[in-house]
C-alpha cells in the first residue's frame, strides 16, 4: 500500500469568496510544491475550473480530483468527489438547473473567474454560486452516488453551513461516505465532540480560499492508486486501505 497525502477541499478563483490568485494553475503549483499527492478542486456549486486544474497537473505527480462543494436547500455544504471532470460536469448540469435565481454581485461577493491551464481568463461566471441550491441534502447525496462519486459532509464542526448546524445530526440513512473536520479541529477534540460519529471515516482538509492555506491540513490515504474507488475502500477500512490524519 502506498501513502498519498491529500487535501480534498480547495476553492479556486471561481468561488466568489476565494482570492483571485487561486487560479487552477497556481493551485496545482502550490499543492505540488508542498508535496501533496492528491487534491480536489471543490468550488461552490460549480466545476468549471476542474478541467484547467487537471490539465495543469498533467505533467506532474499530482492527482486532481473533480469535485464540487454543493449547498443544499437547507444550506448544508456537501463535497462531491469524482475521478473525471465529465462526471463533475454532469453533476453541475443538475445543480445549475436547480439554482436559486439571481446573478452574482461581484462588488458584494467577489468575482467568479473561469480560467484555463495557462492562467488565462476564459470568462466570468454570472450565476449566484454563493447562494444555496434548491436541492435537498438527500437529493444531493443520492445524485452524487448515482454518478459514482463520494459524498463528504463538509466541515461538520462549523456552526454555519454544516450538515449538523443545519439538520441537527447525521443519520446512517443519509449515506455519507466520510465526514470532514475543518482544518483547525484537533483530532483529540474531534474524538470527544463527535464520538457518536466514530463509525464514519473522517477527513480534514484546508478548505483553502487563499494560496497560503493549501495543504495546511492534509490526510494520508494508504491505497494502491489515487482513485475514488481506492479512497472509497479506505473510507470503509477494507483490504488494508485506510485514511489517517493527526
Amino acid at each position: 500500500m502506498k501513502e498519498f497525502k491529500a487535501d480534498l477541499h480547495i476553492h479556486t478563483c471561481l468561488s466568489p469568496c476565494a482570492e483571485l490568485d487561486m487560479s487552477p494553475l497556481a493551485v496545482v503549483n502550490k499543492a505540488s510544491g508542498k508535496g501533496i499527492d492528491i487534491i480536489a478542486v471543490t468550488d461552490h456549486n460549480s466545476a468549471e475550473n476542474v478541467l484547467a486544474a487537471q490539465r495543469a497537473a498533467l505533467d506532474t505527480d499530482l492527482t486532481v480530483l473533480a469535485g464540487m462543494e454543493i449547498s443544499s436547500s437547507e444550506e448544508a455544504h456537501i463535497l462531491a468527489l469524482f475521478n473525471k471532470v465529465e462526471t463533475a460536469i454532469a453533476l453541475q448540469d443538475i445543480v445549475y438547473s436547480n439554482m436559486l435565481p439571481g446573478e452574482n454581485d461581484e462588488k458584494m461577493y467577489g468575482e467568479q473567474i473561469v480560467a484555463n491551464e495557462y492562467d488565462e481568463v476564459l470568462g466570468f461566471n454570472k450565476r449566484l454560486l454563493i447562494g444555496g441550491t434548491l436541492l435537498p441534502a438527500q437529493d444531493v447525496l443520492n445524485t452524487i452516488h448515482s454518478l459514482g462519486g463520494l459524498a463528504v459532509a463538509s466541515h461538520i464542526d462549523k456552526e454555519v453551513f454544516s450538515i449538523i448546524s443545519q439538520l441537527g445530526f447525521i443519520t446512517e440513512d443519509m449515506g455519507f461516505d466520510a465526514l470532514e473536520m475543518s482544518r483547525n479541529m484537533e483530532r483529540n477534540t474531534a474524538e470527544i465532540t463527535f464520538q457518536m460519529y466514530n463509525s464514519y471515516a473522517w477527513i480534514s482538509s484546508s478548505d483553502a480560499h487563499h494560496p497560503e492555506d493549501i495543504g495546511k491540513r492534509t490526510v494520508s490515504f494508504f491505497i494502491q492508486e489515487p482513485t475514488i474507488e481506492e479512497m472509497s475502500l479506505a473510507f470503509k477500512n477494507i483490504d488494508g486501505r485506510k485514511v489517517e490524519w493527526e
Partner: protein
Amino acid sequence: MKLSDLVEELSLEVKSCKDGLDNEVKGAYVSDLLSDVMGNSTDGDAWITLQTHLNIVAVAGLKNLAGIIIVGNRPVQDEIRQKAESENVTILVTPLTTFETAGKLYQLLK
C-alpha cells in the same frame, strides 16, 4: 392553550399524528437551524419552521415539543409524515409566512 386551538385559530392543516392535538402549547420557538432548536427550544413549544428535512421529527420528539408548524405551504413528504406518525409528532402546515405565523401565535399565547 392546546394544539387543537391553534389549528382552529390559524386554520392549520394537520399532516400527522392527530392524537397530538391535545398537547398543551406552553410557548413557541422559531428557527430553521435544527442544531439551534436542539439547543434552545423548550418542552411544550410549538416550533415554527420552513425546514422539512426528516430530522425535524426526531428533534421535535427529542425536545418534547408540542408540535411543528411548517410555514409557506411547503410540501411534507410521505416519508416524513409516516415517521412523524410513528414517533407521535404532530406536523401542521400553514400558507402563512414565518413572520405572520409567529405574530399570530404571539397574540394568542401572550
